[in-house]
């Protein structure tokens, strides 16, 4: 029982860490991985999601519905930001970085002024279950499940829907898509909005575990970027999954061998090493392998 509990503990941590990275990155994988926009304000959209969730919850709305509201709200804010600001800075990496950084400051300072330094938190639901001497929170497993469901939906939307086909085409060659009758402006706004909606949902999910403040986003933006960049954009979804698996794996391993802080540092170090070896991210390597395998089997 003792060893079982210890093993379970490690697996639980691994799931928790994977879920955290995927959830934090699930919106950014669209916005940066697919659209190529360095959105430094992504964490602030998650923050907006957290606020919407908290306000709705305290107004008596059940948490799951409050989180859906968070997605819708953040998605709408995202579409407005895209039309007003972001769209002027596509393909301008540095400008978009500066501009979205500015947006992130505006949003967090704005929330600070309007709502003060903190608001009433939302309790974590579902309670705990014991294994041996230890207890484990059920909600962490729910986070993991939702993270998987979110990447699966992003993948399905971009693979199987008409919107998804048009969005992928537009990201590859907007002029050509436009010349074939696609309103690419709408596609950009919807895609960006979808990424923000995912961020809003993630923010809402995290709102049930964390302190909600105007600077909530800072906890997520860096890790979201590290995960998405390590995954690469050759295939943003498989990249996200493989980078979350490897980074969380290393973090969990070192965490248990040494301690939490070294585990965290090791994860970031691992991201650096992966990017040194594979500058375009893990997914580029996977795609290359696939093509090679296909060529060999074709012969």
């Amino acid at each position, binding site marked *: 029982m003792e060893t079982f509990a210890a093993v379970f503990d490690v697996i639980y941590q691994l799931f928790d860490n994977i879920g955290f990275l995927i959830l934090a990155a699930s919106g950014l994988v669209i916005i940066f991985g697919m659209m190529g926009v360095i959105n430094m304000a992504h964490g602030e959209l998650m923050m907006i999601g957290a606020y919407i969730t908290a306000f709705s919850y305290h107004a008596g709305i059940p948490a799951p519905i409050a989180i859906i509201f968070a997605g819708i709200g953040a998605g709408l804010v995202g579409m407005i930001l895209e039309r007003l600001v972001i769209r002027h800075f596509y393909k301008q990496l540095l400008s978009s970085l500066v501009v979205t950084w500015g947006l992130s400051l505006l949003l967090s300072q704005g929330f600070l002024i309007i709502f003060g330094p903190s608001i009433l938190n939302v309790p974590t639901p579902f309670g705990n279950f014991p294994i041996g001497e230890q207890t484990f929170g059920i909600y962490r497993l729910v986070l993991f499940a939702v993270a998987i469901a979110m990447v699966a939906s992003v993948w399905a939307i971009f693979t199987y829907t008409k919107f998804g*086909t048009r969005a992928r085409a537009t990201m590859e060659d907007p002029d*050509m898509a*436009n010349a074939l*009758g696609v309103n690419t402006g709408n596609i950009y706004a919807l895609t960006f909005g979808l990424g923000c909606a995912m961020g809003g949902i993630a923010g809402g999910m995290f709102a049930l575990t964390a302190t909600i403040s105007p600077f909530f986003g800072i906890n997520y933006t860096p890790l979201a970027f590290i995960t998405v960049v390590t995954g690469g954009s050759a295939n943003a979804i498989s990249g996200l999954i493989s980078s979350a698996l490897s980074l969380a794996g290393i973090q969990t391993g070192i965490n248990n061998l040494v301690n939490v802080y070294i585990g965290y540092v090791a994860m970031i170090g691992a991201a650096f090493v992966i990017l040194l070896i594979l500058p375009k991210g893990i997914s580029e390597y996977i795609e290359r392998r696939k*093509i090679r395998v296909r060529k060999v089997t074709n012969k």
Partner: protein
Amino acid sequence: MVLKVNHLSSGYGNVKIVNDVSLEVNTKEIIALIGRNGVGKTTLMKSLIGHIKSSSGKIYLHDIDITKLSPAKRAALGIGYVPQGRGIFTRLSVLDNLRMGENVGGNPRSTNFERVFQFFPILKERGSQKAGSLSGGEQQQLSIGRVLVGNPELILLDEPSEGVQPNIVQTIGEIIRRLRDEEGLTVLIVEQNLDLIGAVADHCVVMDKGSIVTQLATKDLNNPDVARKYLAI
């Protein structure tokens, strides 16, 4: 008349490339736009689909003034654009590339994949393959097939023979004629390949330094001196 261009000028930034071009393409005509490298043929095609703004002049599709419309609106009105370099979405499957053409002609419900497969059977075979893995000739067929999925009336073809092996060029030529004869399409084609021009064009419009300098009967290009003067050969 399907397409009418009136004193059109356009270019990149302050650099004027297309200079006072007037041109007419009648229903079910196949007109070849020829001229040496860099004279502005592609720039004119880009102005016609709307990728670059015209600084002066007018473009009419039938009687509709499309000079200020977005490329998407021009496509919806029935212009099928097959650009130089083919404009394939390399990361999409062949089928998804074809689906992207359904807005051409503005009636996405009337899409016709079977018609496309009848002209280009290879596209059916390769349906689920990534378009980037197709050969040059197959990509060219995909680019033409893609606009045919919709309902174009006028097809703008920019150097379909470029980087395509000769037997496929011949197939493409036959298909262009059939599109006109069987489907009643109108075609403006930019070409440098004498065989292809000879096989499809009703007559030729010659461009030099951004302007239309003369018109030729297709058979005039049989004279090597004429051909050498107006084409990059």
